[in-house]
């Protein structure tokens, strides 16, 4: 099949960008979306033009490095899939697609479709961990974790940190990302000692990074490749309220 791609080209963070149109021919249904872009890049390099830069690594939907908007939808709108696993089967000959990077103040564009998501790392630094220096651990069996709590923690921990939730949110909020990590750690007995510190600190870090806040659009849940439920934001807010009152009480 043949496709028309309108791709955001931007040299670096300081430059301004623009859409450039490309034709790509000979796309087969068994290719992935990124393999289609590889093909495009081989062709445009042959013409002496710089290839389209995009982040990617594992190409099996788990590292969280890839991601851009396809026709305005993060990861292309095929539920539970990152762009690296999005199959060209779902597109048809003659389709016209617009590709652009995540759009958020906290995610500056680095080049073309690649953005800087280091703000996510800084949110984790604020409290997205359980302090357990190597070597001090009790026997693993000494800590009992109810299956329900373990399952919820795992549902939340499945987040791959791709940033689609931010890109989809009209407020560019990082609430789903932050709530997922808080829910993971706060659901476990090991996470209790730092529970409220963690929640307050991570939410503060999120605001400091210029992410917006949640106004219940639910766009994040709709595009999340790991189907993280928006319910976790409610859990985070509950712990945040507790943390705020607790801190004020001190």
């Amino acid at each position, binding site marked *: 099949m043949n496709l028309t791609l309108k791709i955001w080209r931007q040299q670096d963070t300081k430059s301004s960008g623009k859409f450039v149109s490309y034709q790509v021919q000979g796309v087969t249904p068994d290719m992935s979306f990124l*393999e289609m872009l590889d093909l495009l890049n081989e062709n445009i390099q042959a013409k002496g033009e710089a290839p389209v830069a995009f982040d990617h690594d594992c190409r099996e939907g788990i590292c*969280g490095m890839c991601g851009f908007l396809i026709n305005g939808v993060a990861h292309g709108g095929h539920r539970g899939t990152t762009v690296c696993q999005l199959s060209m089967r779902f597109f048809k000959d003659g389709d016209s697609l617009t590709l652009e990077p995540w759009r958020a103040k906290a995610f500056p564009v680095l080049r073309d479709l690649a953005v800087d998501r280091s703000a996510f*790392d800084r949110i984790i*630094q604020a409290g997205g961990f359980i302090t*357990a220096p190597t070597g001090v651990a009790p026997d*693993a069996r000494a800590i009992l*974790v109810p299956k329900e709590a373990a399952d919820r923690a795992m549902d939340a*921990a499945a987040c791959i940190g791709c940033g689609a939730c931010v890109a989809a949110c009209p407020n560019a909020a990082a609430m789903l990302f932050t709530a997922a990590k808080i829910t993971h750690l706060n659901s476990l007995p090991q996470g209790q000692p730092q529970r409220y510190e963690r929640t307050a600190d991570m939410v503060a870090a999120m605001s400091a990074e210029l992410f917006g806040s949640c106004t219940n659009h639910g766009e994040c849940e709709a595009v999340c490749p790991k189907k993280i439920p928006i319910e976790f934001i409610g859990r985070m807010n509950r712990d945040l309220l507790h943390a705020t009152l607790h801190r004020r009480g001190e």
Partner: protein
Amino acid sequence: MLESKIPSGPIEKKWEKARFEMKLVNPANRRKHTIIIVGSGLAGASAAASLAQQGYNVHCFCFQDSPRRAHSIAAQGGINAAKNYRNDGDSIQRLFYDTVKGGDFRAREANVYRLAEISVNIIDQCVAQGVPFAREYGGLLDTRSFGGVQVSRTFYARGQTGQQLLLGAYQALEEQIATGAVKMHTRSEMLDLVVVNGRARGVVTRDLLTGAIESFAADCVVLATGGYGNVFYLSTNAKGCNTTAIWRAHRRGAFFGNPCFTQIHPTCIPVSNENQSKLTLMSESLRNDGRVWVPKKKGDTRPPSQIPEEERDYYLERRYPSFGNLVPRDVASRNAKEVCDEGRGVGPGGQGVYLDFADAIRRLGESVVREKYGNLFDMYEEITGENAYKVPMRIYPAVHYTMGGLWVDYQLMSTIPGLFVAGEANFSDHGANRLGASALMQGLADGYFILPYTIPNYIASSSLEKVDTSHPAFAAVTDDVSRRIAKLLAIQGKRTVDSFHKELGKLIWNNCGMARSAEGLRSNLQKVPELREEFWNNLRIIGTGEELNQSLEKAGRVADFLELGELMCLDALEREESCGGHFRVESQTPDGEALRDDEKFSFVSAWEWKGEGDQWELHQEPLTFEHVHLAQRSYK
């Protein structure tokens, strides 16, 4: 010359003895020492976090945008530990035995024993960090049996164990970054090692955003940069996985151990088109219920449903009646290749075999099969568009892991003093074949529990002179790096990096993959250098070195693969025996099974770089087996 530094004494006391004999660094002095760690996967992140907790200054580097992206994240199955929580006869001794035997007697006994010993601490550490391992209703940890092992010793977090263990180490690392103990350098690629007076004292890196060439000095350097499976172009590795860090260190004097030992995983989704960029692994657990078959007739293109039972060849069940579809990875892979080479493969290009669940669905019902393997069937459908409940899956072996890597001693130090190598990047614990759920175990053992002892010991026992980046050695290496980049950019030929990479991958896969012959290897030893020659004369990279330039990044990595590929073929040619997943057609039993040759090849190959254009020199580290008796594996 090769000193493995294995402590004396009984095997179960060696590590304890070694730890006692190691020198310590006074807590007040630790902050005066700097350690460079390249790579942020399980081994790198866990080492960086642990050493920073102890009080050292750590510089950690990764080429991705965040340390959380490292490819450890993609491991699905689980992590082994000899906890014996199931009371099913497991023990440190048994995990040790299984690993040595599974590695086809090409690993060091003392290292493997230590790995089995440490396995129990890893689970404790990870649970304390909040890794959400699967639990039973009573709240206890769940385990499963994995990869044909008879005990249930594999701990798991759904099908995302690697992700969860990596996030645990990543979070510990981020906590240390926040305290300032670790300086993290993301989007930064190590391009060379700096050796001063015979000791590893720093690295030269390229900032992938600006192209700036930077150098960093330290008391010692750790490479935890993963495996080199991408030399095959198509593999289950992430696209960025590369050999550059260890290859550059090899060129600076670190010996390369067992380069030809690569693991081929039997259950991957077959290659479907010329533009395919990577292969996807389907969990090995599928073989518990799926039956592997191909048509008896060559070139049979009928859809599977129209091939009657008597015209199907369930070749694993036929050849290995006692293990059937559950033979180890290497045996399953080689047999799939054989039937496809005979012209009986299925699917596009004939490079695939069926993995059929029809019997399991009849026996257990679709809902039970869905409960056990639902996510895998979904993933298969996502990629192939086929419903495996209705038609058999198609699978084919793919490169998955490299057991080879830089040679290290018991302290995980390479032949360059002060250069430590951890995780998949070293050659150490898996011999000629790695057992399932053992890669995560090794990465974390190295990072959490071995390096935090051996590095302080090195620092305390060597009188290290003060060295900073103003030392002339740094300027010289920085120069080398800049010159090489300029040279790559100046070629301005006609071919793209990927076209060279694909061509190299095919050469290595065809002649240095599952089956090797002297003839094929000799032909590669001619063709790989020819391809390298063409690469350096006909490559074309668009753009400059002073910007984000992904083609330039790839070119540097492929240039190194083009050298490594040659060494792999040389190593494979030298090893005239079949062992692990490596089948030398000249070395087989009368009924076509792999034949190991312990008389001649019970050693680790350690190759020394002798300079551009010169032949490598082979050193041998003899392997002795005092605890596990050498035996030919049989699964008949």
